[in-house]
């Protein structure tokens, strides 16, 4: 129930305002900070992979170039466009919640989910070809050229990094789906849209990871192809 600490006299507190916050503004700032703290742990999580990549890349440059030549640049480039496009629709979903247009929120959330699904579909197609070409590290790995073991390390990193990224995409599509119903029912408005905003932060973070993965995995040694 509203009291002096929560809202000006007479005005009832917003139903989304938790009792331990003074105002929706304070609550929003705390949520943003908390979400970013989580994303900082994610930066370190992916950072370990990028560090491993850098260490092996600097040692086995030649093998990494040769291995990268077997990645499908067209698929990778299309996926880059698809994912950046999904970040745009996500940003527009957050915008729609800020201007309290509930149907538009749902439209943009669905668009983001569809683009995320297209990304994963293309990724699955790429993975399929790597299995057929015996480029998946392990017992069936086959490489005719020199540096076979080092090429296998590249593909271990490729599957590790894109796999962890894909898992984040799947989780992202799941949390987007969870937003659909409350969005449709008009729960997110200019006053309160923290869940949409925070899911947006997560989705954009996953986009940023791909922005680094694309040049580091697909485009290295392209001039020598």
């Amino acid at each position, binding site marked *: 129930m509203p009291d002096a600490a929560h809202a000006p006299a007479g005005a009832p507190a917003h139903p989304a305002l938790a009792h331990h916050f003074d105002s929706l503004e304070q609550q929003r*700032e705390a949520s*943003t*900070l908390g979400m*970013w*703290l989580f*994303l*900082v742990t994610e*930066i*370190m999580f992916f*950072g*370990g992979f*990028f*560090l491993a990549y*850098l*260490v092996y890349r*600097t*040692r086995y440059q030649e093998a990494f170039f040769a291995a990268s030549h077997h990645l499908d*640049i067209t698929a990778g*480039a299309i996926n*880059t*466009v698809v994912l*950046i*496009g999904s*970040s*745009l629709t*996500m*940003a*527009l979903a*957050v*915008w729609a919640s*800020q*201007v309290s247009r509930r149907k538009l929120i749902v439209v943009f959330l669905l668009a983001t989910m569809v683009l995320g699904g297209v990304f994963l579909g293309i990724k699955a197609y790429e993975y399929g070809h790597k299995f057929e070409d015996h480029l998946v590290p392990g017992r069936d790995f086959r490489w005719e050229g020199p540096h076979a073991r080092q090429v296998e390390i590249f593909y271990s990193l490729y599957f590790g990094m894109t796999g962890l990224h894909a898992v984040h995409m799947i989780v992202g599509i799941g949390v987007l789906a969870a937003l659909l119903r409350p969005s449709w029912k008009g729960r997110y408005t200019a006053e309160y849209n923290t869940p949409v*905003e925070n899911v*947006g*932060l997560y989705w*954009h*973070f996953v*986009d*940023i990871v791909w*922005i*680094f993965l*694309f*040049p*580091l995995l697909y*485009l*290295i040694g*392209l*001039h*020598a192809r």
Partner: protein
Amino acid sequence: MSEQAHSRRPYVLVFAALMVLTALTYWVATLDLGPLNDVVALGIAVTKAVLVILVFMHVRHSTRMTKLTIAAGFVWLGIMLALTLADYLTRGLIGVPGK
């Protein structure tokens, strides 16, 4: 954040910039610049990431506390990368007596 946040224009502009930078990163990769290839590719990727963080993720309107937290995250990532590479990249540069 109020009035600036209610325009769609910045998002569309950033999307267009990200598309241009994606095309640029592909084009640069087709040129043989030696070690500069990586510097340019990472430079473009960092530029794209900064655009996403500032505009899509609204950090340009965030509180200083949030900005400081994000910056701290990247500083720690930088420490991890820099100190580890300072080891791996300098091994064998100086002869070790008795080895």
